[in-house]
């Protein structure tokens, strides 16, 4: 369990994290979403004591990170895969890490095998590719077998196989009852991986909800009807409006209906005897829901 209580971080005049309060619970993958500069990384850095909040606090398992005698056995974090000495081998890096928290040296080989880096344990970390560096960072997070795991953009630089491997790893870690908190820009990936979402924008909490609830609450399902004949389409359009639907033209020959479900639209089509070439329900994706929610809080947006 990660507990954020009124967590606030300012750099000079700029408030990067603004009174953030939420709980990240065990046994599920919690996705941490927000536009660039929304404060995700800063929040994660405060969680492990790298940055200090101006006010509020963040607790891991009920205590501050710096109070933990063996922090790596309780919290595993991948924040920045490049945060290591490039001249030190991957194996020695993990060995130094293990010794700092009294973790058995045999764990180093175990986690290297888990992430598929056993063959390059003696290679200097500075020569690693982006993807290998990311795997080494994940190995470090797993080293102390912690109950809380935190990953900042874990699939950065990974190939499709690696992305799928990370997704399965997150799922299995959560299934073992651990707390898994992961930030990402890849909405489609989050939709597949996360059970719960915490969304922030400009440092403020925008949403804290299960994925399905978040999508349902932040988007509307629409119905698309394709009617080739202009006259029939106009007739259907008028009828749909009379029934309380909101319509607008989509592609040529298409009507997009808001506010009526696909069953009702199909019945009306039948009633009017209109010839249709397509009738489909369009469910929103996480990405659409996210875009609607964060539209007003994009930090580095491009003005139209």
């Amino acid at each position: 369990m990660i507990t954020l209580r009124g967590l606030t971080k300012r750099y000079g005049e700029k408030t990067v994290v603004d009174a953030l309060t939420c709980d990240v619970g065990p046994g599920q993958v919690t996705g941490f979403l927000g536009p660039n500069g929304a404060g995700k990384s800063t929040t994660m850095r405060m969680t492990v004591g790298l940055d200090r909040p101006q006010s509020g606090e963040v607790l891991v398992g009920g205590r501050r990170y710096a109070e933990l005698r063996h922090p790596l056995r309780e919290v595993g974090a991948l924040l920045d895969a490049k945060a290591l000495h490039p001249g030190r081998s991957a194996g020695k890096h993990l060995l130094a890490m293990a010794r700092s928290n009294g973790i058995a040296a045999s764990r180093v080989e175990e986690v290297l095998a888990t992430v598929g880096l056993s063959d390059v344990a003696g290679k200097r970390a500075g020569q690693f590719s982006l993807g290998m560096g990311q795997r080494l960072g994940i190995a470090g997070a797993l080293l102390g077998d912690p109950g809380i795991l935190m990953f900042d953009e874990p699939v950065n630089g990974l190939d499709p196989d690696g992305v799928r491997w990370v997704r399965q790893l997150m799922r299995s870690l959560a299934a073992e009852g651990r707390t898994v908190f992961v930030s990402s820009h890849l909405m489609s990936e989050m939709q597949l991986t996360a059970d719960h979402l915490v969304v922030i924008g400009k440092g403020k909490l925008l949403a804290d909800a299960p994925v399905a609830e978040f999508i349902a609450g932040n988007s509307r399902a629409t119905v698309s009807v394709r009617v080739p004949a202009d006259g029939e389409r106009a007739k259907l359009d008028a009828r749909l409006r009379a029934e309380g639907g909101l319509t607008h033209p989509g592609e040529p020959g298409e009507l997009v209906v808001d506010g009526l479900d696909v069953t009702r639209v199909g019945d009306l089509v039948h009633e009017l005897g209109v010839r249709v070439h397509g009738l489909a329900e369009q469910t929103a994706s996480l990405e659409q829901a996210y875009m609607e929610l964060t539209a007003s809080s994009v930090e580095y947006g491009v003005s139209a």
Partner: protein
Amino acid sequence: MTASVEVRGGGLPGAVASEWTKFWSVRATWWCLVAGTALMLFYGTLSAIAQRVGDQPQGAHTIALGGGFYLTQFAVIALATLFVASEYAGGGIRSTLLWTPVRSRVVLAKAAVLLPVLFAYGVLLSCAGMALATAVMDGHGLPTTLEAGFTTASGMGGYFALLGLLCTGIAWALRSAAGTLVSVIVLLVPLPLIVASLGLPEAMPYFPGIAGVNAMVEAGQPNPITMTAAPYALGVGLVICAAWTAAALLAGAAALHRRDA
């Protein structure tokens, strides 16, 4: 969560064990130690040859002192500076503080690794320098008494250890290798000379470099760098070095504690 993890360890002993592993697992450590050794042997050989032809007789212990102060100490400075500054060059400090979140422990752990290593290095290297110089001089120059040899060896060990810790303190505060090297070297050599030329020559023996040299010379004898005897007892030289080192470490620890990593 499972039993594959031991229950002991961590804390300051864990931090020291971790830093020990980090210290010996980068090439810079070995390069600095080898370079410092080569410089001492180079200086010892050349100075001993000069004793056979020159007319300024010196003892082997004075030659070893010269090798340590004029050359080898710069390898010690580089070694200690890089041990801390490399944490900031690549962002490794963020990993280090994840492993050991109590920041003062990280400062102490690095100091605890350097202290015995540099002490042993100074003792061994001064002995090697004296042995080599004695052999090459082949009866020329001045004799070295056991007491003089012991003073030089123990003084160099103590000076290298405290000098290394001084560098780590400044490196924690400045977070840059270049800034630390310039600061320490200016503090050791040009600054005492400037202070002396500005009319305060009596302040010179209180700078860490000159105090360290005084710790390598028998009581009452002039040191070969400033050509004057120390105005204090033999052990006081290292106490002065220790005071500089303690101030630097406190400043470094305060800076590390205050800043976001």
